[in-house]
């Protein structure tokens, strides 16, 4: 009898101990996407969602085209539908049309979509049409792990309008097998008299990229090139330009604005710091692959991820794509902060401050909100919460083409990445890079003011003219600054100042 009792106790104990595993297996069997972790308990886990009943209801989502963000949206929609009984309609829209596709019905007082995906810098224009994220989601455990900078990006005046599903920043990606190669280090030293190392400044970046341009340095029988960059007008190229400008123009000694002088609202984009960055960028057209001047983000990811270039800098996607097992340069890449500069423009003294300066750019990323006029707000927030639950998030960030990047403290642990096959030192360099950016006190955040699109488009057009040789860097940026003045006059300086002050407070470490 005692033996039977012992067996029963042992069996119950075993069930209790193993229940999370069995529970995880149950869901990962049904949803292979989370096979690595199984379901992870939480307010929006698979288990929790399976208890919701949205049968007979329809959720309408407008998202980006497949794969980037469009693929995880559709995948999680399918999972959500299976778990809750809801019908989920997903519409895929090209990146350039996401803004208008939501804005037209917003302005007409309609809500054809319950959930709209866009970019985090839409927040100022969209916030009046979006439902603030309810308190119960803001206080959830999964939200507590989101880094303060990404909470700031998703919020306006302390109110969260965008549900965090992605974290973005620009950083440097380089070919570790070249930069760390002792033979190339020796050859580079002999030929140029300089050290081959992870570039510390944009000048070094340019010198190395030019040296490794147009010859077969990885022995694959094809020519390789210096750098792949987003240079195509109207395809996010303004973000690439801000990345190149930050080191020359974000001076920690002159708080109060990177894009404008907050006091006077004078555009700063044609000051010598920005002009220096654009001059560097024009020189970069000589060391990008043929046609590189027309590279959009997809081309950049394909070019660097396909092993065509030594360097690249932009969103995480190119790095994660390069690290996937089927990539030709798997475990041959390194991450580092964006290069700095040996001088930075001081707008107070109207002169250059000599010395090393570095400024991470927290570029905008994917953002998503629930329409204020939606009739299915609860279901919409549940879907978003499910999208970003811990199991889905861990699976999504390891797939480069998904465009879901780290934004939680847990993501900055090397183990998360070594578990999916990354070499330990690469994983460490990656998480160190991201963590250093989070810790930096000299950061640049994206422009989030009324008319953001107009400002960015004017800058992109001017920069594109310089890259194409139609205008000199100074003339191009003067043209952009003049247009920024015109936009300011149309929108109203005070309107822009009020919105811009929020971003400046983040940059000046006051939020």
């Amino acid at each position: 009898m005692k033996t039977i009792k012992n067996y029963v106790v042992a069996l119950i104990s075993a069930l209790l101990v193993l229940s999370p595993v069995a529970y995880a297996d149950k869901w990962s069997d049904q949803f292979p996407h989370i096979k690595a972790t199984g379901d992870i308990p939480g307010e929006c886990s698979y288990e929790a969602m399976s208890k919701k009943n949205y049968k007979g209801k329809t959720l309408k989502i407008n998202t980006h085209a497949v794969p980037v963000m469009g693929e995880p949206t559709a995948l999680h929609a399918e999972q959500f539908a299976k778990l809750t009984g809801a019908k989920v309609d997903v519409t895929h829209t090209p990146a350039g049309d996401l803004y208008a596709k939501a804005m037209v019905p917003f302005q007409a007082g309609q809500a054809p979509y319950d959930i709209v995906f866009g970019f985090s810098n839409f927040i100022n224009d969209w916030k009046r049409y979006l439902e603030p994220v309810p308190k119960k989601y803001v206080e959830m455990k999964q939200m507590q792990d989101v880094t303060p900078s990404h909470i700031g990006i998703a919020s306006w005046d302390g109110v969260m309008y965008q549900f965090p599903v992605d974290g973005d920043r620009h950083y440097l990606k380089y070919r570790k097998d070249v930069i760390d190669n002792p033979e190339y280090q020796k050859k580079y030293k002999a030929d140029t008299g300089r050290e081959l190392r992870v570039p510390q400044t944009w000048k070094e970046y340019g010198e190395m990229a030019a040296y490794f341009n147009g010859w077969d340095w990885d022995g694959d029988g094809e020519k390789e090139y210096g750098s792949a960059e987003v240079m195509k007008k109207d395809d996010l190229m303004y973000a690439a330009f801000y990345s190149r400008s930050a080191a020359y123009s974000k001076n920690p000694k002159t708080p109060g604005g990177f894009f404008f002088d907050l006091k006077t609202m004078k555009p700063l984009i044609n000051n010598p710091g920005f002009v220096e960055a654009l001059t560097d960028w024009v020189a970069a057209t000589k060391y990008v692959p043929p046609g590189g001047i027309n590279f959009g983000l997809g081309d950049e990811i394909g070019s660097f991820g396909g092993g065509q270039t030594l360097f690249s800098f932009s969103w995480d996607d190119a790095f994660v794509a390069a690290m996937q097992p089927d990539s030709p340069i798997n475990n041959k890449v390194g991450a580092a902060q964006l290069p700095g500069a040996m001088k930075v423009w001081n707008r107070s003294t109207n002169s250059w401050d000599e010395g090393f300066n570095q400024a991470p750019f927290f570029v905008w990323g994917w953002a998503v909100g629930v329409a204020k006029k939606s009739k299915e707000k609860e279901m919409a927030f549940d879907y978003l919460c499910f999208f970003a639950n811990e199991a889905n998030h861990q699976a999504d960030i390891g797939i480069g083409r998904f465009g879901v990047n780290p934004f939680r403290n847990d993501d900055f642990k090397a183990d998360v990445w070594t578990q999916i096959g990354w070499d330990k030192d690469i994983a460490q360099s990656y998480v160190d890079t991201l963590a250093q950016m989070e810790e930096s006190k000299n950061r640049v955040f994206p422009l989030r003011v009324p008319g953001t699109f107009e400002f960015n488009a004017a800058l992109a057009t001017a920069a594109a003219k310089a890259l194409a040789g139609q205008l000199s860097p100074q003339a191009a940026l003067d043209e952009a600054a003049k247009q920024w003045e015109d936009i300011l006059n149309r929108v109203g300086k005070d309107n822009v100042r009020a919105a811009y002050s929020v971003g400046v407070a983040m940059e000046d470490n006051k939020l």
Partner: protein
Amino acid sequence: MNFKHKYVFLFPGLFVLIGILIFPIIFTIRLSLSGWNSYTPEMNFIGITNYIRLFTDDPRFWESFFRLSFLSVTTVILQYIIGFALALIVWREIKFKRFFRVIFLIPMMTTPVIMTVIWRTFFHESLGPVNDLLGNLGVEPILWLSDPVIAKFTVIIVEVWQWTPFMFLLLLAGLLSLPKEPFLAAAIDGASPFRKFVYVTFPLMAPISIGAIIIRLIEASKIMDTVFVLTSGGPGTATETSSFYIYIKGLREFQMGYAATLSFTYLVIMIISLTIIAKVLTKLMIKE
């Protein structure tokens, strides 16, 4: 007799005309007098401010308009020449005539956006097959899409490829409808094929040619999808056309009021220019 009831029969047609033609134009004019944008989403009234901005402070629109004029005139002239030549070939009794007629029409039957994506892949400077083939012949990569001058000609190549069949179709229909007698008379007089073309075929085809050229000019002046997919107006603004610029202002930057101003101005310019072009062509091509 009171025939007033006849107007009742006009109402359905009139109603449709007002709905699909008059109302959008009137709405566009009204929108052009407003400052509707992303931060002022309302039909306010700002007078002719947008028009003043267009005529005094927007060189980019005028540059895009002149670029469009160059692209559309060049493409239509090439389409006319090639289309006429192809039509003349299959107009004659040749082997596999029906087969060639279908072959020549294929580009027009394909979806422009899809085909432009394929052309973009062909012309991709580092990964595309065109430069690869040229490389095998020892030719350095040509910057099909990233050189400001060459990119214009790349757009022209794609447009000519896509729309020459339309010209071919109209001109072939015209050739098939020509009377036989002038050709018989020319044959009896011993006219050479060249003289027959210059003095018989071409003059007889003039009215159809003018119609075909005007139709294609109207279509070519709306060129948008090819530029959007192939170059996005770049490098710089080297291939930006009026319709692409209006799209950027309206649907990218969400300056709806200003985009309406551009659209309406563009419409007026096109009506005037095409009327003049039609008159000039009639004078040049149709001899009394």
